[in-house]
């Protein structure tokens, strides 16, 4: 079934979307419209965040309503490392002085690491439950971090934290919009590759099975809990990476990145595109940013119409954009 019609068509649609996402800023750049480059960068970063959520939600069926926590943590890691590097203040001085960093690769590594470390206890507690409990608990944990960020004044509290000078990438001028897009787009491609490899691996098989029938998985000797926990942590790390990029894109990070609305938007991205589909997050992010941009240009009340569109998708277009275009999922 792997080379069935649905599969090739889905892949073709996905590759087409990825190509469009690349062409869009190139054309915009040629026409001297840097705003559209930023729009495409936003698409790529949100798509990356959604690829992360898609590991937990799409493959594992874990409806995390708290992924903004990891998105925001990634953002704050970027902001905090950058501000310490900028001000030449160590973040801690024992056992050695750590001055922060304005190097993107270092920032990314820390963003992923911290997100994963936070996801570990959150996942371990949340995954003891299932269904609607899981949804509410992940939401509650994200709120906890949100309120902490709001009330902790060291890094701006409610007002957020500005990144005065965008973090750098060796060999590139990240202040140039097209360079920044290239960085984000490249990471998105890597994440898509990671997702595809993960999905087709033994771990992916166990994860997919845990969503379909956890009882069966346990009965063949594979305990679902560790598989789900690992997926949750991997998922958080990818979303955290996207958060670091998002902070660098906006040169600003605030508690709104940690808010429940952000968690909701991430779910929307995944479902708009097609839950569990490799290219679903790309389709979802492109569609979402387009809707936001086009509707936002027409009316101040664009979220009202976004709500109507979402409602329509849930009630009538299950499977999301990729699902509508490519048909049902087949797993070999």
């Amino acid at each position, binding site marked *: 079934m792997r080379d069935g019609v649905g599969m090739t068509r889905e892949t073709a649609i996905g590759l087409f979307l990825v190509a469009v996402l690349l062409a869009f800023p190139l054309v915009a750049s040629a026409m001297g419209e840097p705003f559209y480059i930023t729009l495409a960068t936003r698409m790529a970063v949100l798509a990356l965040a959604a690829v992360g959520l898609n590991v937990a939600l799409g493959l594992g069926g874990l409806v995390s309503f708290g992924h903004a926590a990891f998105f925001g943590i990634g953002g704050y890691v970027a902001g905090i490392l950058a501000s310490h590097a900028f001000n030449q203040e160590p973040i801690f001085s024992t056992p050695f002085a750590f001055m922060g960093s304005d190097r993107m690769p270092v920032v990314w590594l820390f963003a992923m690491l911290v997100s994963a470390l936070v996801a570990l206890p959150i996942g371990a*507690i949340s995954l*003891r439950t299932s269904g609607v409990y899981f949804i*509410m608990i992940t939401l509650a944990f994200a709120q906890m971090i949100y309120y902490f960020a709001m*009330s902790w004044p060291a890094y701006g509290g409610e007002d957020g934290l500005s990144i005065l000078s965008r973090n750098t990438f060796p060999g590139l001028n990240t202040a140039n919009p097209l360079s920044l897009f290239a960085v984000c787009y490249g990471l998105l491609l890597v994440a898509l590759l990671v997702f595809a490899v993960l999905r087709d691996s033994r771990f992916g098989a166990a994860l997919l099975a845990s969503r379909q029938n956890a009882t069966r998985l346990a009965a063949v000797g594979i305990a679902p809990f560790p598989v789900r926990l690992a997926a949750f942590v991997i998922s958080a790390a990818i979303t955290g990476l996207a958060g670091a990029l998002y902070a660098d894109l906006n040169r600003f990070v605030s508690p709104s990145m940690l808010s429940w609305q952000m968690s*909701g938007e991430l779910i929307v991205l995944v*479902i708009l595109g097609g839950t569990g589909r490799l290219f679903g997050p790309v389709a979802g992010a492109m569609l979402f940013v387009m809707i936001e941009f086009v509707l936002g240009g027409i009316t101040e009340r664009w979220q009202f119409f976004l709500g109507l569109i*979402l*409602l329509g998708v849930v*009630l009538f277009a299950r499977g999301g954009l990729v699902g509508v275009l490519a048909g049902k999922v087949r797993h070999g």
Partner: protein
Amino acid sequence: MSTALLIEQLLNGLQFGVMLFLMAAGLTLIFGVMGLINLAHGSLYMVGAFACAAVAAATGSFWLGLAASLAAAAAAGALVEIVVIRRLYERDHLDQVLATFALILIFSEGTRWLFGSFPLYLDIPSALSGAVELPGGARYPLYRLAIIGVGIVVAAGLYMLISKTRLGMRIRAGESDREMIGALGVDIRTLYTVVFALGAALAGLAGALVGALQSVQVGMGEPVLILAFVVIVIGGIGSIKGALIGAILVGLVDTLGRFLLPKLFVAFMGPSQGTTMGAAIASMLIYVVMAFILAFRPRGLFSANA
């Protein structure tokens, strides 16, 4: 720290808990009977607050406003149930989350459209303004005591409704066995609409009551909604009793935490750092309590479907 101040904070916590109970009762009822997770419950809270503020402003009567809040929230609830929610009962939780998230966007932007972006203000009715003398010499606002009274009445009323009336019997039957209730010849669609409208009315009531304490504005419902989720997760989803105990627990822990923790930290860390640290920890406290309870009772304290 005086006893009077502590009593005042205890009452504040109780009042907060009662308000959370009004929200949580509807949520847990809707989940228990229909198996639906409703994110838009906070929007119904907001609808109640706006209806109360608008009608009170137009007529000059808080009480007419209060009646309007119940009617408007119940009507909005029934409408939403018939148009949208009804199609979601057989869907998985993910679809329910997304659809009711969409409803939040529609309600929030729709309300902004109607009322503009500026907050409305609602005055405490004159009959309930002023304060009463508490034992120990403190004075406590009468209105907040009245909210606590309303909560007690609603809790008792819900208990009577569910344990003693025909509607309550159907609700209990619906919780335990949906097919059976169909077989009993109960019109299940109407039952669901009624239950949803009832939950909505309670949320609207909470919104109206709190509207007189805070400003009435778009987005006021969601923070309360999320706390109500914490409440029903702690109490056990589907259990009214769990919602009551969870709500009081969360109300007290949150209020007393914000009051006591900064003082505690100041004692150890000095005034400036201690206040900050205490406030930051206090803002996370109920979530820590929730995590702690779930670590031992993954389905909450009084799970109805354990």
